[in-house]
């Protein structure tokens, strides 16, 4: 069995997710298309094997959440929390993504062709996010590891309380969050951006990107700071 098509106007999403969790891995399913998602929540969440899933239309909340190994494409937009807590694999949103895209991701690649909403990559723990458009405020808040490439602009408080995640921004940054700073691009940074753009299928010059990383001044409690950060 190579390819399967599900139409969510005819079959409940729960049945499709159940199939993808239980039967599909053992049946050698390679590709699944899901038609008429119509903004349903939790499409293709918790997948645990190498399968290609194409969602044709707009997805609701948490599409591709907790993904492991699968490659999931949403041809329209994605609601809150797309690819949240992804472990590995790939999630590609061809439209825009709402708030909290890639929240708490541990691994894998999230590609958003359009804009991402607020709090993109919040608490990122690993993996990579490439956004073709702009990201909203508080993106990469408390991001611990992993990388983000933002081809458009960033909103307020980018990278607030960053740990070791590194952000690359081509456009304007409305404001940096506490402890985030712009640093020079090294050779390794240029290569990282080049590789991630290639993986995302986007065409930009890595030299146009700025590197944002943690100044690490919040790592240790400073009693003299008087709550002024």
């Amino acid at each position, binding site marked *: 069995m190579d390819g399967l098509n599900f139409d969510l106007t005819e079959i409940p999403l729960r049945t499709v997710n159940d199939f993808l969790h239980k039967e599909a891995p053992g049946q050698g399913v390679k590709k699944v298309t899901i038609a008429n998602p119509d903004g349903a929540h939790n499409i293709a969440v918790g997948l645990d094997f190498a399968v290609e899933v194409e969602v044709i239309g707009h997805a609701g909340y948490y599409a591709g959440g907790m993904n492991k190994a699968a490659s999931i494409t949403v041809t329209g*937009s994605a*609601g809150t929390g797309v690819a949240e807590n992804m472990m590995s694999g790939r999630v590609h949103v061809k439209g825009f993504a*709402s708030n909290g895209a890639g929240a708490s991701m541990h691994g894998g690649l999230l590609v958003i062709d359009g804009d991402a909403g607020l709090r993109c990559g919040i608490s990122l723990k690993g993996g990579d996010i490439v956004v073709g458009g702009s990201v909203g405020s508080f993106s990469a808040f408390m991001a611990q590891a992993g990388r983000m490439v933002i081809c458009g602009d960033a909103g307020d408080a980018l990278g607030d309380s960053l740990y070791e995640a590194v952000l690359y921004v081509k456009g304007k940054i409305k404001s940096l969050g506490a402890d985030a700073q712009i640093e020079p691009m090294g050779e390794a940074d240029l290569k990282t951006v080049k590789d991630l753009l290639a993986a995302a299928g986007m065409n930009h010059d890595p030299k146009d990107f700025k590197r944002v990383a943690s100044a690490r001044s919040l790592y240790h409690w400073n009693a003299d700071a008087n709550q002024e950060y």
Partner: protein
Amino acid sequence: MCGIVGLLVKNPALKSRLGELMVPMLIGMTERGPDSAGLAVFTDPLAEGERKISLYSGLTEEGEDFNWLGLAHELKQHLGVEARIAPQGNHAILTVGIAPEPVKRWIKEHHPKLHILSTGRAIDLYKDIGTPTEVSNRYDFKHLTGTHLVGHTRMATESAVTPDRAHPFTAGEDFCLVHNGSLSNPYGVRRMLEPRGIKFETDNDTEAACRFLEWRLREGDDLETALQKGFEELDGFYTFLMGTPDKLALIRDPFACKPAVVAETDDYVAIASEFRSLAHLPDIKNAKVFEPAPEEMYVWTA
């Protein structure tokens, strides 16, 4: 959590289908708001000197058996007012040819449990407890006609589940507001407005936002200026959708904590908390779908 929906038709041919297009939008937001539902519809305005008043009898002892024709008769007898009444169970639209204040005062005095839902030349307002499906059926929403409407499904967090605390809220004439979220300073806003003679009917946080914005409009602000003052004065989480006789307006708080998505075609603008409520609309596959940005004003004119 709550659900909001709004629909404005640009193509006049769709005015007769406004309710039919909107009912699935409202029902689509049932999971976000199963305890109450309501909507305000804006129709072609009445003549300058006429007003319509939406009334709700669900809090009276008679409930849906309220004697609406008797009410019209009483108004004729006591105030000498010719009133037309269009009853529908526990709801009625009363139309009068004079300034509405004496009529409303008389109603409040003689039928204190009769709830005045809205007043204006263009607005009809319906709201009640029950699921969106139940409330839609109760008032036959699918046959509503008009240029635009604002709807809400409620999951109460800040005040009790009662018909008068359901949305939309109104203040003044021909203005309504629905809210997804929770305000953190409604009592501060209230303490600022009450000494100015503005009276509140419930303890609901949304009512504070509604009365604040209507007060600004009445003080002469245009809609954009009033909304800007709203950004400055109203604290908390909100997506607000507002209706005036010729406009729909949408704003989201700076943190965009509560969702909204817009679909626009040559024929209509539709707004909902989630795309689920827009998926059935005609030609939606070719609509321009976008997420409104935080702290921006979106105003559409009918």
